[in-house]
């Protein structure tokens, strides 16, 4: 098995792991970490595809790699916004619950 297939398969597993965390971890921050892992899985998959596309004297297809840089920055922006909302929620309600009905005592 070559490097790109290996990491492509690894990426598929990362997506699955991230998804699992997004579903079962109750705390929003943990969901956010899981989202980042899932996102990185997608990125690695794209990176492996770029490596597969090595041609014309280039070690990898530069288009996906350029898109990846954009995607990593967008994911960072998403994380920043989510953390800001979460911290504000904690500040104003002292909970971080995502439940429909706010926990008692509010």
């Amino acid at each position, binding site marked *: 098995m*070559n490097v790109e297939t290996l990491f492509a398969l690894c990426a598929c597993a990362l997506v699955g792991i991230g998804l699992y965390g997004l579903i079962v971890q109750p705390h929003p921050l943990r969901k956010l970490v899981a989202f980042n892992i899932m996102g990185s899985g997608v990125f690695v998959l794209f990176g492996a595809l770029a490596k597969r596309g090595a041609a014309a004297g280039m070690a*990898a297809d530069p288009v996906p790699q350029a898109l990846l840089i954009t995607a*990593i920055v967008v994911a960072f922006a998403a994380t920043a916004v989510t953390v800001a909302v979460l911290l504000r929620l904690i500040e104003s309600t002292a909970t971080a619950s995502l439940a429909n009905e706010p926990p008692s005592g509010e």
Partner: protein
Amino acid sequence: MTTLLSLVVALLLLWLALWTVVARDAFVAVAGFVVYGLLLSLVWVRLAGIDVALTEAAIGGGLTGALLLGAVGRLRGTEAAAAAERSGAGTRAFAALLSLGVTMVLALCVLALPEPAPTLAPQAADNLPATGVGNPITGVLLAFRALDTLLEAIVLVIALLAVWSLAPDRFWGGRPGPRYAADPDGVLSYLARVLPPIGIVVGLYLFWAGADHPGGKFQSATILAAMWLLVQMAGLGDAPRIDGRWLRTGIVVGPLAFVAVGLLGAWQAGAFLGFADGWAKPMIVVIELALLPTLVLVLALLLNGAPARNSGKMPAGDGGR
């Protein structure tokens, strides 16, 4: 040998990801994620993506990790309450099954990918000389798909507006985060004096190298932003007021200059974001130069968070700075 090494890296990556997702404690999970980000950079090196590796290490691992670590410190016992909402064993099993299913289907798709792989590398190689840059990724980012890069800068500005909009009304126009007290003899302020000159040189080097070698504005901006944050955390400088005129100018100069260069292209070359013959390289340099302050400011301010204090003065009617 190389495949073996890749295999070890892949397994380690999976193990860390799993550990991070199932860890009991949020702090442990975030710490795991930071290590995971570093390991990921190694994966990018193995996948021949030095530029991506640098971006991943700087932004994916570094800044995201710092952001999450900062958040963990401010959870204030919400973790215990969240633990009570933990889903039952049945839900977890079902979730695991579904996630496994997604992985399986994706793996099947990976194995069904066409041979030879479709690629745009030859086209990029053919058109790269027209852009005058040597690094094909810079060529894609600033010529072929310049729109994406413009949008990316706009995404960051919008994310910053989103973060700022979360401030309590009374702190609007104030400064984000706590004011760190300087400890003149502390190791942090020592570091904040020694490191920034080196960091600025390294950052500018990465910026300059980006045209022809791996590197570029993002990696450079991250290092510069980190230096600024270090100075803030050491208490040697304060976070800026968010209504400062220079700050606002710095935030928008990048995308606005980008649009201006694009319009110049529309006039000279007949296409928005196009370059007339011989103008590509200088125009790309102009865009990158203008984007650098925007990226440094926005990345640092996104880490700083929403305004949370007024530094003494009320924002009302005092005309900003």
